[in-house]
């Protein structure tokens, strides 16, 4: 099973490399530069920043830590997806149907909504747990 997986995987990788090098529409130098750059930026810049944020989250009192972590994870992910939409010039030019929304405001609304929801959820869970403790058993 393992050998079959590894062998078939290697075959597909060879197919990909051969296909990319023989395809005249593929600019191999451009692709390689982009691939290396994305890997280096992710592992060398992005992840260390995430770890720094994680260290800060570790300083939050344990009662709120998971809430703060949830808000951070969700909003970092949303920000990553929103970033190209914010900087793109695709909407410039004669076609207003490309990127027609106010994405800065959209991102802000999402960040505020998720933060408020997480805080309310946390308070709700705490209230429910306290309620269970006070209710008599049996």
């Amino acid at each position, binding site marked *: 099973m393992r050998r079959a997986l590894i062998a078939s995987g290697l075959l597909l990788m060879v197919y990909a490399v051969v296909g990319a090098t023989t395809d005249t529409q593929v600019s191999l130098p451009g692709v390689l530069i982009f691939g290396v750059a994305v890997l280096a930026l992710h592992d060398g810049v992005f992840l260390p920043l995430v770890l720094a944020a994680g260290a800060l989250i570790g300083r939050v009192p344990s009662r709120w830590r998971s809430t703060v972590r949830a808000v951070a994870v969700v909003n970092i992910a949303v920000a990553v997806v929103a970033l190209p939409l914010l900087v793109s010039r695709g909407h410039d030019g004669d076609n207003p149907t490309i990127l027609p929304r106010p994405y800065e405001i959209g991102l802000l609304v999402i960040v505020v909504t*998720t933060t408020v929801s997480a805080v309310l959820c946390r308070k709700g869970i705490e209230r429910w747990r306290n309620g269970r403790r006070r209710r008599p058993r049996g």
Partner: protein
Amino acid sequence: MVRHPDGRLKHALTWLNAPPDRLRRGPFRPDAFPSALRSTRLTSQLGIALGVAFLVCFLTGLISHLVQHPPSWFWWPSEPAGLYRFTQGLHVATGLATVPLLGAKLWSVYPRLFTWPPLKHAAERLSVAVLVAAALFQLVSGLLNVAHEYRPMPFFFTTAHYWAGWLVIGALLVHVGVQLPVVREALRSRAPHVRLSRGHGAPPVPDADRRQLLLTVGAAAGVITVATLGQTVRPLAAISALAPRRPGTGPQGLPINRTAAAAGVRDAALDPGYRLTVTGFGRTVELSLADLAALPQHTTVLPIACVEGWSAVGTWSGVRLRDLAGLLGADQADLAGGEAEVESLQAAGRYRTSTVAGPHLADDRTLIALRLGGEPLAVDHGYPARLIAPNRPGVMQTKWLTRVTIRSLR
């Protein structure tokens, strides 16, 4: 002067394989990654989710490629009309939702980048580097493409994204094969869950913490999906604050990818001397816009489904493509196994022609459309005439038609 060349080489190799511990600084220290949330179980579960996501993206992406570049053995139906709309919408939605999944997975295995000694298991680490680079390549290039942000990509997106798809799936299979025993061990329900960064003896990660993190990552994927799916699912358009397109915007309520001005056809399209040339079966017919309007008109409701994952539905009216074949004296039997090639006024570009064959050629709903939503086509939507067919990517719904060539392949 080198006295003992063999001895020096041996010394160098030994040093590379086991560098002195005083060099073990920064991220290479054994306790450099203190997070209590990392575990092989977390990594395995994220890995399974990622495997499903990348498989979905690979299959839907492959379908999109095959529909646009059909090999002889490939058959694509003309029904249901919204099938491509669904597969390509799923492709982009899954890709976007995978961003937090891949982020969490790479966070959880980051300490393995700094395993000591650095050259230990070099081959395996190199293959993982290829997998990570290819996975990041697919997600980042896909995201940049739907955002129409091409400046960071010094290559033609479509072909690079296609071949990188094969590379990712291959590297993924290799990875699963190598890690299978580790994953099996990690997912056994009563096994103590070994932490990645610390040695044995560290307490296992509580299930509640791990589940909370998985739920958080799932919530991130959910938020991203709701924030973008409105570009293809019309009822969500109001709340999808980050959707790159909005159905309902644009002339006649449909978004556009390429305007007439950008394609350089504005003057030719608006020219009153416009003629649609229909050739085939040894005959040629030139039709003006009035001639086309005088032919039997049919109306159909069909979506425009873009490769970028957005779609919108329109009501199209025009002449059936197979009725044009009738003008040439051909009948249903002549068309069977044949194909029609439609050409645009657009002088250059990859998508200036497209081929209609098989079930699409015979389908009642395949039209040379003259009207959209009851009005004459807007010039940016392909005035005077465009092709519209069911279950077909937007790039193949050729606009600003100038010529239709019908061939029987018998």
